[in-house]
């Protein structure tokens, strides 16, 4: 299932792009991050704790950024696993200048595997939206921080 | 070592104390600590109803309750409903109407039906079907289960009338 959305950040594309490539910023913005470390060029190792309703689990994984077009777009390959299943996603971020800021269009096709796939299918759309909202609201805060 | 908790409950009129881990589900407690294997496990998401027992007079799914939560409770399982020669009207109803085939869901069906008849002694067919929403049967197509509950309701009403006449 393809999921997509867009968020407006009050900051120009160049700054948003920089934020999205800053491990420190990402570790503050990605929901539930316990650790996020650079592990090669544009590649991160991460541990996140996901809590959605009663479901709570620690996922270990990696995030790789590919097909980077400076200040315009990037592709994210995300692979996380936990004892209850695996969550992979291939996503794109497109940055579009708009008024005094940037609209970030995101799209992704999450793949759930294992137990979370057999019980979580009905929730995936909502979960992705919640996580995206959280991420971009924090990114907005980061954007303000950088500017101030 | 894992925590263990003393639990005392009365099951089918017999009071006993054991020390399960908190994570022991009531159904595992009944089956493994007390050897009451008439209560079955058919699923893990609280849908199928094979594990239905009564706790303090109400039908519950014993796979969705920890044994420690039944501290002090009065529990009735299928083994406590009746025995050959002294069957509960529902047990007789299921037998007479061929309300069971493989028998696996039957204890849960009987316990759920008993809850229904306790507050609705004369249910309509659709009320019976609605009341059995939480119990799966793969063998009978529910046809004879409905008849079994009707049979029991009828015989319970008759014996209640007979008793009233005696009083």
């Amino acid at each position: 299932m393809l999921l997509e959305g867009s968020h407006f950040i009050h900051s120009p594309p160049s700054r948003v792009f920089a934020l999205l490539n800053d491990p420190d910023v990402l570790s503050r913005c990605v929901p539930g991050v316990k650790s996020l470390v650079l592990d090669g060029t544009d590649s991160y190792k991460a541990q996140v704790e996901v809590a959605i309703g009663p479901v709570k689990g620690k996922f270990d994984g990696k995030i790789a950024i590919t097909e980077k077009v400076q200040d315009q777009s990037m592709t994210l390959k995300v692979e996380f696993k936990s004892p209850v299943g695996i969550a992979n996603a291939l996503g794109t971020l497109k940055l579009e200048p708009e008024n005094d800021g940037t609209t970030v269009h995101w799209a992704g096709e999450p793949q759930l595997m294992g137990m979370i796939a057999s019980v979580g299918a009905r929730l995936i759309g909502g979960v992705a939206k919640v996580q995206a909202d959280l991420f971009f609201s924090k990114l907005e805060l980061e954007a303000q921080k950088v500017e101030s | 070592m894992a925590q263990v908790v003393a639990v005392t409950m009365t099951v089918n009129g017999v009071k006993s104390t054991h020390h399960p881990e908190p994570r022991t589900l009531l159904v595992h407690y009944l089956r493994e600590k007390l050897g009451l294997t008439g209560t079955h496990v058919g699923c893990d998401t609280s849908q199928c109803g094979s594990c239905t027992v009564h706790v303090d007079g109400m039908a519950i799914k014993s796979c969705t309750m920890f044994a420690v939560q039944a501290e002090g409770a009065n529990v009735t399982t299928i083994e406590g409903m009746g025995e050959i020669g002294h069957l509960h009207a529902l047990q007789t109803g299921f037998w007479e109407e061929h309300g069971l085939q493989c028998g696996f869901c039957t204890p849960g069906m009987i316990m759920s039906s008993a809850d229904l008849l306790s507050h609705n002694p004369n249910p309509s067919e659709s009320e019976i079907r609605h009341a059995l929403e939480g119990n799966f049967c793969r063998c009978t197509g529910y046809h004879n289960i409905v008849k079994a509950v009707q049979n029991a309701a009828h015989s319970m009403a008759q014996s209640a009338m007979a008793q009233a006449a005696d009083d």
Partner: protein
Amino acid sequence: MYTSEFTYHKASSVSDALAQLASNPDAKLLAGGHSLIPTMKLRLASPSALIDVSSLPELRGIRTEGDTIIIGAMTTHRELEFSKVPLLSEVARLIGDPMVRNKGTIGGALAHADPSADYPAAILALNAKIKIQSSSGARVVTADEFFQGMFTTALAPGEMLVEIHVPASVKGAAYEKFAHPASRYAVAGVAVVVHSDGSLRAAVTGAGDHAMRLTKLESEGVSSACKGLVSASDLMGDHFASAEYRAHLVDVMASKALARAK
């Protein structure tokens, strides 16, 4: 099937439960258990401690104070089903199955805020208030403030839901649900309440990522056939029902509920 290990504490009072909760942020309150225990059995959650509040007397029962009915959080669906509480008795009858209703509680269900649960629509339409307790005191929030998103409510860490306040009487109320045939959760459940002052409130559960008011119905909603109350783009979809179909079901359920409530 076993959950992971946890320690069990049977709370002796609300304040005891809150103190336990404060001492272990990973602990979970155990109410009826019908969402939490299956999740733990599938090991989709492994809290290190459970604080059992299900049988606290102070959280049970339904009482009337003036024009308000106060429902204890640990009141079971069954108690509500056999009560005279407006709308909630009708809603409770449609939850899960009899065994779930015998054990599950309204407080547990509301705190859990499953997007497909039945109560939230009714709570919104009734304009109910939710009383929340923490070690520092109590606060009351409106239903509109309470439901914030998928599995997300106004409850902060360390807080617990203790009471639900609903109007003692309304002019009319109805809940119409299109149930998922397997889970029996709402694919679209619409509650409509005509309050004593004549105002109309309506809300839907199941269709979106959380329960929400049907503002279009409330503002225009006097005609009998509802059309286009919600946009599919605001709804969820899965392999059983797409967002577009859910949007249609909202209209159908709203029309039926409206007809009965008026």
